[in-house]
C-alpha cells in the first residue's frame, strides 16, 4: 500500500519548492528543527530519541558478548536494523522489514562500518572467541519525511553515548571508541528543484533522492541515490555542497 497524492497537491508542493519557500516555510537549503535526547532508554547501553521536524526516531544500542566473524577475528561486530513500525504511518505494515526499511538500515550500517566510525578492534576481548556485538536498532515512531537522516542522526547520537558494559566481564565500562562523525544529508529532487531534508509531502512527489554523508574533514563517507529519477553530475556536486554546509551544526548536536 503506497500513499497516493493528488495531482493538485503535487503541483502545489512543487510550486512552493520552486518559489524558494517550502510548504513548511523553509528555504530549499534549510534543515528542519533537530532535537536529540540522549540516554533515553535505561535498559540500553546507548540510546537517543531524535526529532527532525515531526519525524521521530528512537535508536537503542545494545552491546552484548558474542563470537567474531571468522574473517575479522579481532574485531567487534555491528548489527544494524530499522523497523518502520505501523505506529509511525498508516502506510507502514507489521511484518518482516520491507525493502524501504532494509535500505535505510543498510545505508546507515555502511555509513558507520565503511566510514570507520567505530574502532572495532577495541571491541575485541579474545581474538577468534569473544568480542562485543553492537546491535543498533532504529525504531521509527512518527514518520514525516526523511527517515534516512533522522535514523542516521539517531544511530550516531546513540553510539556517541554508548558504554561498553565491560564490568560484566570484570573490567571497567568504557565509552564506545568513536573515530569519526559522518553526518548524512538527504536531498530530494522535485522536477528541476532540489531541496534538502524533504518532509513527507516533498518526499512523496520527489523524482529522485540523494543522500550524502560527509565527515568532519569535509570528505565524503557515503552516498546513496534513490527513486526512479536521475541526477546530473552538476546536481550531484551541488548536493555535496549543500550537505557539507548543513552538516556542521548537525554534527555539533550529535557530539553534544
Amino acid at each position, binding site marked *: 500500500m503506497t500513499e497516493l497524492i493528488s495531482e493538485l497537491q503535487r503541483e502545489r508542493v512543487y510550486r512552493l519548492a520552486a518559489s524558494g519557500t517550502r510548504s513548511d516555510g523553509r528555504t530549499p537549503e534549510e534543515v528542519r528543527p533537530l532535537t536529540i535526547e540522549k540516554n*533515553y532508554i535505561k*535498559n540500553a547501553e546507548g540510546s537517543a530519541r531524535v526529532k527532525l521536524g515531526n519525524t521521530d526516531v528512537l535508536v*537503542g544500542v545494545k552491546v552484548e558478548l558474542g563470537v567474531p566473524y571468522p574473517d575479522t577475528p579481532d574485531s567487534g561486530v555491528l548489527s544494524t536494523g530499522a523497523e518502520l513500525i505501523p505506529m509511525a504511518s498508516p502506510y507502514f505494515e507489521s511484518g518482516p522489514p520491507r525493502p524501504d526499511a532494509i535500505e535505510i538500515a543498510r545505508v546507515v550500517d555502511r555509513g558507520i562500518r565503511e566510514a570507520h566510525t567505530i574502532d572495532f578492534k577495541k571491541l575485541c576481548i579474545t581474538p577468534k572467541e569473544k568480542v562485543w556485538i553492537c546491535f543498533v536498532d532504529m525504531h521509527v515512531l512518527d514518520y514525516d519525511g526523511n527517515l534516512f537522516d533522522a535514523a542516521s542522526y539517531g544511530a550516531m547520537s546513540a553510539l556517541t553515548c554508548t558504554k561498553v558494559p565491560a564490568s560484566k566481564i570484570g573490567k571497567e565500562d568504557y565509552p564506545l571508541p568513536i573515530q569519526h562523525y559522518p553526518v548524512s544529508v538527504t536531498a530530494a529532487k522535485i522536477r528541476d528543484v532540489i531541496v534538502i531534508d524533504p518532509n513527507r509531502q516533498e518526499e512523496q512527489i520527489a523524482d529522485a533522492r540523494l543522500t550524502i554523508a560527509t565527515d568532519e574533514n569535509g570528505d565524503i563517507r557515503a552516498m546513496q541515490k534513490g527513486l526512479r529519477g536521475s541526477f546530473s553530475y552538476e546536481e550531484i556536486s551541488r548536493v555535496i555542497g549543500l550537505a557539507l554546509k548543513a552538516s556542521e551544526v548537525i554534527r555539533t548536536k550529535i557530539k553534544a
Partner: protein
Amino acid sequence: MEDVEHIEKKMKLIDENGLRLDGRKPEDMRPIRMEVGVLKRADGSAYIEWGGNKVLAAVYGPREAHPRHLQDPTKALVQCRYNMAPFSVTERKRPGPDRRSVEISKVISEAFDSVVFSEQFPRASVDIFIEILQADAGTRCAGLTAASIALADAGIPMRDLVASCAVGKIDGVVCLDLRKEEDNYGDADMPVAMIPRTGEVLLLQMDGHLTLDEFDKAFGMVKDAIGGIYEMQKDALRKRYAVTAEEFSDLPEQAPPERRAPPEREAPPEMPPEDGEVPQ
C-alpha cells in the same frame, strides 16, 4: 515444601518494616505520568511513563480493514499490536512478534472490542499499536491504559475508558503494581483491566499462587488502583484538549491539524460520560 525452599533462596523483596525494594508500601503504586496526543501522524496517541516503563500507544481508524477477506460486514475489527522494542529489555529482544506478544495483543484486542462502538463501522478496522520502549514489569497494563486514551484522542466512540493495573504477591504479601524484580521473584502476578465506573472486568490473567482470601484482597486493591488511574486518564485528556484550545487561540490563522474523517463518525466524545448511562 519446594515453595519454602524457593522462598528461602530467593531475593528478599519486603524488609522488616514491611517496605518494598523501592520503599513502597504494599498498596503503593509506582509514579505514573501520561500525555495525550504525542504523535503527529497517528489519528490518536498517548505516552505513559509508569515506574520504569516507557510506553507509546497510537490509534489509526476507523479505516478500511485490509486484507479485505478479514473484513467483518457487521462491525469494525478492533485489533491491537503490542510490540517490544529490541532495546526495551535487559537482554536484546529479536524484532518481530514472539508468542508472548501475540498473546498480549490478543487479550488487549479483546478487552477493547466490546468498549468501542464497533457496530458503527462495518468493514472497518480500529488499529491500536502499543510500543514498549522501556520495560519494567506491568507493560500490558501501562499499554492498555495508554491505548485507552489514545482511542479517545482519535475520536473513536467508546462506552467508556478502560484502565488497567496489576496486583501480585511477594514474600507472601499481596502488593500492588509489581516492578521487575518483584515480578521475577514474587509468588503471583495478576494484571486486570476494567471499566472503572461499572467494575466490568475486561482483562484478567493470573499466574503463581493465591489463596481465595488473597485473591479477594488483591482484587479489592487493584480495583481501587484502577479507579485512581481512571482519574489520571481523564486529567490527561482534559489537559490535551485544554492545550489544543489554547493553541487555537494563539494561532487563529492556522487551520486545525488535519485528521481524516472516519466514515459517518459520531461526534467524538472528548470526555467519557460522567454518569453511568451507556448509550447503544
